[in-house]
């Protein structure tokens, strides 16, 4: 076999330590059938030009280049080979700069080591197979799960780029947590006002026809792989036709049954047919089957339907759950996060004492469309004379969530600011473990609270040091170990941001992997936070880590950026050929490989009784090849024969 060996001197970086002539003579005396060419800087423009011409002229069957690290210029030289009309995988690079010339003090040893390494490469390269990149047809449509800030931004950006988007939202309204907030930190913008333009784009903007919004819907199943997912979505019945309902609310009044409104933390009641809250989009009510008498008692009540000015068939109690199937090329997970269950802390009284609230419940209390119309009141309906905010509830605590959620401090200081506006006489107490307010705007609200003579700060060591109880006067006593107790009419707990309940379910269904806190694991937490470890599945917002709105929308945009660059509409995607494959005649069907693959690339064909590797999902790590007891898995470019040849070569 005709092999061409090129020896790059790298100026004098290599030749200072390794004499090319000695190496050449050694290969010759070993009887190696190869050409041997020495060049000064093969990676330079001139070097590449020379290499390309030489390769085109020699037309070798294999190429070995002894130069720098393959991590430096393997792809450069593979490119040159392709330009010269050779398959770029019929090539082996020998790292004689980083691994020999620069680290070997003794010149004789350096030359000896180089000869051994080159001999080894010559043994290996003859076993190389020509490989071609895989190409794959794709569906340009994208499934976005979750219509909070991250999902909304991803959906609009993709739709603007001409992509079909299926936007799936679990709740009856879009906008996520921020639309429940009247004012948002750090600049006290109204949450609805901030998001309404984006939500308007989704519902009736210029690109709205590109977006299929499915509210009250959840992902049920996913099959396939990047570019070719088949997704199954289960949509619960709304019992109201969203396309014909005008959102007038005439149907609420006659409805005879009410129950606690989950969107207001149970602080008020809503009718069985209602908006989750006024101003929620889409402006279409929904029927809660856990309340509506037709479902709870089997009654024939149709008072809501009778009241509808748009016709008798707008509200239809016979609507059924829909199972919807779609083909998509990519999936964006933007399912958001949840808040730590404050009931875990019996000493803080949540669930036991009516005047102890969570931050989200307090947020709704502040909102004009909330249960109190924006009034801050105790359960007696009176404005509180003193409010205590307990920070870090479940955060910074190894027994609960060890991390800082990063948003609760600013939330609490925003509450302080709004309280000072609405109830200037009220005392505000902050009980905290640490104060964390990063970012260029982060300190403003904290400083305002610090400068407010009505605000008091108390540092506690750990949550068990605190106890909230009702005092003799009916007010809440917040006691702290080693400190004087505080009297408060309202106690607000700021819980840790934790993974949403669906994270585990979806993570398991998609085999995505969760980090040690239970959030979706990113491809890389700093470099690639918007990409999951599975090709074609992207992460945006708080499903990956606690985040504020800015970080969430950035991730939504990042996810859409990845999709637009990785899955270009009308183009096939091209994948690296370093994948593994099962040799069916050797496979015993033991399925050990199925379990070791980190990318779900291996499945078992029950009919044939053998495992199969999907080359589009395989990333070429080779761990399956190492695990196979039958030696039935061939890893492209890192085959057992090639590595064995290297072992033999280096130990000659």
């Amino acid at each position: 076999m005709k092999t061409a060996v090129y020896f790059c001197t790298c100026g004098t970086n290599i030749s200072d330590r390794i004499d090319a002539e000695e190496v050449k003579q050694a290969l010759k005396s070993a009887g190696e059938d190869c050409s041997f060419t020495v060049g000064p800087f093969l990676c330079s423009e001139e070097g590449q030009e020379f290499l390309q011409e030489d390769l085109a002229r020699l037309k070798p069957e294999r190429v070995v280049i002894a130069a720098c690290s393959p991590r430096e210029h393997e792809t450069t030289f593979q490119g040159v080979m392709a330009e010269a009309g050779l398959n770029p995988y019929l090539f082996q690079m020998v790292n004689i700069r980083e691994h020999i010339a620069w680290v070997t003090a003794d010149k004789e040893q350096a030359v000896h080591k180089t000869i051994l390494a080159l001999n080894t490469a010559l043994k290996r390269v003859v076993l190389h197979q020509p490989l071609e990149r895989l190409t794959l047809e794709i569906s340009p449509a994208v499934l976005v799960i979750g219509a909070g800030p991250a999902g909304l931004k991803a959906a609009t950006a993709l739709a603007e780029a001409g992509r079909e988007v299926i936007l799936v939202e679990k709740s009856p309204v879009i906008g996520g947590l921020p639309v429940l907030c009247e004012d948002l930190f750090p600049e006290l913008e109204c949450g609805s006002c901030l998001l309404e333009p984006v939500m308007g784009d989704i519902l009736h903007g210029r690109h709205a026809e590109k977006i299929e919004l499915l509210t009250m819907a959840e992902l049920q199943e996913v099959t396939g792989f990047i570019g070719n997912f088949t997704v199954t979505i289960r949509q619960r019945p709304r019992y109201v036709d969203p396309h014909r309902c005008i959102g007038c609310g005439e149907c609420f009044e006659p409805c005879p049954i009410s129950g606690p409104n989950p969107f207001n933390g149970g602080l008020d009641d809503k009718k069985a047919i209602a908006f989750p809250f006024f101003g929620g989009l889409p402006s279409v009510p929904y029927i809660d089957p856990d309340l509506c008498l037709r479902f709870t008692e089997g009654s024939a009540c149709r008072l809501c339907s009778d009241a509808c000015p748009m016709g008798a068939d707008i509200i239809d109690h016979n609507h059924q759950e829909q199972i919807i199937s779609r083909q998509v090329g990519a999936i964006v997970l933007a399912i958001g996060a949840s808040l730590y269950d404050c009931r875990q802390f019996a000493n803080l009284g949540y669930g036991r004492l009516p005047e102890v609230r969570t931050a989200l419940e307090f947020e709704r209390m502040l909102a004009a469309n909330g249960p109190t119309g924006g009034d801050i009141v105790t359960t007696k309906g009176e404005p509180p004379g003193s409010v205590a905010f307990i920070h870090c509830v479940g955060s910074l605590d190894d027994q609960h969530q060890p991390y800082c959620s990063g948003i609760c401090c600013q939330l609490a200081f925003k509450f302080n600011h709004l309280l000072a506006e609405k109830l200037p006489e009220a005392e505000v107490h902050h009980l905290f473990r640490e104060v964390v307010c990063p970012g260029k705007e982060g300190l403003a609200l904290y400083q305002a609270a610090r400068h407010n003579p009505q605000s008091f700060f108390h540092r506690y060591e750990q949550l068990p040091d605190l106890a909230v109880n009702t005092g003799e006067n009916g007010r809440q006593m917040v006691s702290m170990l080693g400190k004087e107790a505080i009297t408060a009419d309202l106690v607000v707990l700021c819980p840790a941001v934790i993974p949403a309940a669906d994270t585990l379910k979806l993570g398991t269904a998609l085999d995505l992997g969760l980090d040690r806190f239970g959030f979706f694991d990113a491809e890389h937490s700093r470099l690639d936070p918007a990409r999951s470890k599975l090709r074609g599945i992207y992460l945006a917002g708080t499903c990956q880590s606690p985040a504020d709105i800015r970080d969430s929308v950035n991730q939504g945009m990042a996810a859409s950026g990845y999709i637009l660059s990785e899955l270009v509409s009308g183009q096939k995607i091209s994948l690296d050929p370093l994948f593994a494959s099962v040799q069916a005649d050797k496979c015993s069907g033991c399925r050990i490989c199925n379990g070791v693959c980190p990318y779900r690339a291996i499945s078992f064909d029950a009919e044939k009784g053998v495992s199969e590797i999907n080359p589009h999902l395989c990333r070429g790590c080779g761990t399956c090849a190492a695990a196979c007891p039958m030696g039935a898995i061939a890893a492209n470019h890192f085959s057992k024969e090639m590595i064995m040849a290297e072992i033999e070569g280096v130990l000659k």
Partner: protein
Amino acid sequence: MTALIREKEKNVAQAAYQPRIVGFLCNWCSYAGADKAGTAQIAYPANLQIIRVMCSGRVEPQFVLQAFKQGADGVLILACHPGDCHYKEGNLRAAQRHTLLLRVLEQLGIKRSRCRFDHVSAVEGEKFVRIIQEMVDELNNKKGE
């Protein structure tokens, strides 16, 4: 006098003994760590020959056995640090396999110290050199064991 000659012979024999080490290095971290030692130009003994694999999870136990069979004095498997694996968990598989492999090697009469598993990140050029030096020293001290 005889004792002196014997001592000298022993020294000569020791100087001539050059342990041969085969290192399986994962492409993304450990191989890059070895490159880092190169760019920092930290000299280390020439006893190591590096075989690059994409992931330490690719290293079949048979590769290690084959290396010993071919006369290797030491085998190194270097992987990314836990949590840093480019392929999520290949380094953990490699660690598990190494633990099992040591038992097999012991049964074959190959000392545990001759087969080392360690983590080297892309910036740990110095750690990489330390590992090589330690292994060479270890093998020199235990020559023939």
